[in-house]
């Protein structure tokens, strides 16, 4: 869908996120689905709409030629499409992600952590350092947004 109306673009992104959340739910990824519904469909829509206040709803046609971009887009589409053949099928028992580590988590998570939700135990404890990095990334994103927008006010 090609549109110059940013409001329509934001709404399509939201609907796409909501559909993705439903797909994740059907594939039993409840935690991912909740994240997608809350972040993709919920808060990012609000933040996009807030950003829309600072710009025009209809974007002007670009002065640059569109052809190179279209070529890159189609190339990326073909490349990424070809890559999807290497992704193992859903629930494939011999795939890399379903090898020993997963079995370890399934067997021992409840015994070692005493909590039923395996996703939480992996995120917070087995891979606590990864999560710390993620939180630092979000923290830095917050700081940068304040920095950029405060400077903007000071200049004008």
């Amino acid at each position: 869908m090609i549109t110059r109306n940013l409001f329509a673009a934001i709404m399509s992104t939201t609907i796409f996120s909501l559909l993705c959340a439903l797909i994740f739910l059907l594939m039993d990824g409840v935690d991912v689905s909740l994240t997608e519904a809350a972040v993709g469909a919920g808060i990012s829509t609000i933040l996009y709409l807030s950003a829309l206040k600072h710009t025009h709803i209809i974007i002007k046609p670009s002065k640059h030629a569109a052809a190179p971009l279209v070529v890159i887009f189609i190339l990326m589409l073909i490349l990424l499409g070809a890559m999807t053949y290497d992704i193992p099928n859903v629930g494939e028992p011999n795939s890399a992600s379903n090898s020993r580590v997963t079995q370890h988590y399934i067997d021992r998570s409840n015994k070692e952590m005493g909590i039923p939700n395996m996703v939480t135990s992996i995120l917070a404890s087995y891979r606590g350092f990864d999560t710390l990095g993620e939180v630092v990334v979000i923290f830095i994103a917050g700081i940068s947004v304040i920095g950029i927008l405060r400077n903007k006010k000071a200049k004008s």
Partner: protein
Amino acid sequence: MKQHTIPRIITKLIVPFILLFGLYVQFHGEISAGGGFQAGVIFASGFILYNVIFGINVGEKILPIGLTISIMAFGIFLYIFVGLLGILMGGNYLDYNLLGESKVQGQIIGIFLVELGVGITVSSVMILIYYSFNKFEDNK
């Protein structure tokens, strides 16, 4: 937005439940879906919804920008502190086994505190980004 009656009434009805659901996801992350990140986002979206309808000045009275920045830093500090607590108790960084009387109890305490830190940071960052977009107006 202040003169639209229906959105105002609906928001007043719905915001407490959104905040409560956020807290539920935060504190029951270990037995049901979700965790600190989702809880933070849900909590922030409830607060932002209130701001959208009633104006940003009302929200800012509850949660000023300076306080939000401090809370944001506090969340990440809590996470790092729990990690350091593992070292102080004689284990590795982010090792929760030694925080409680038994290993399992220690893990439960550690996961709870860490998720709380994540939730606090995420919700305050989201609120802060919303503030930044709406507060610091550019004079175009």
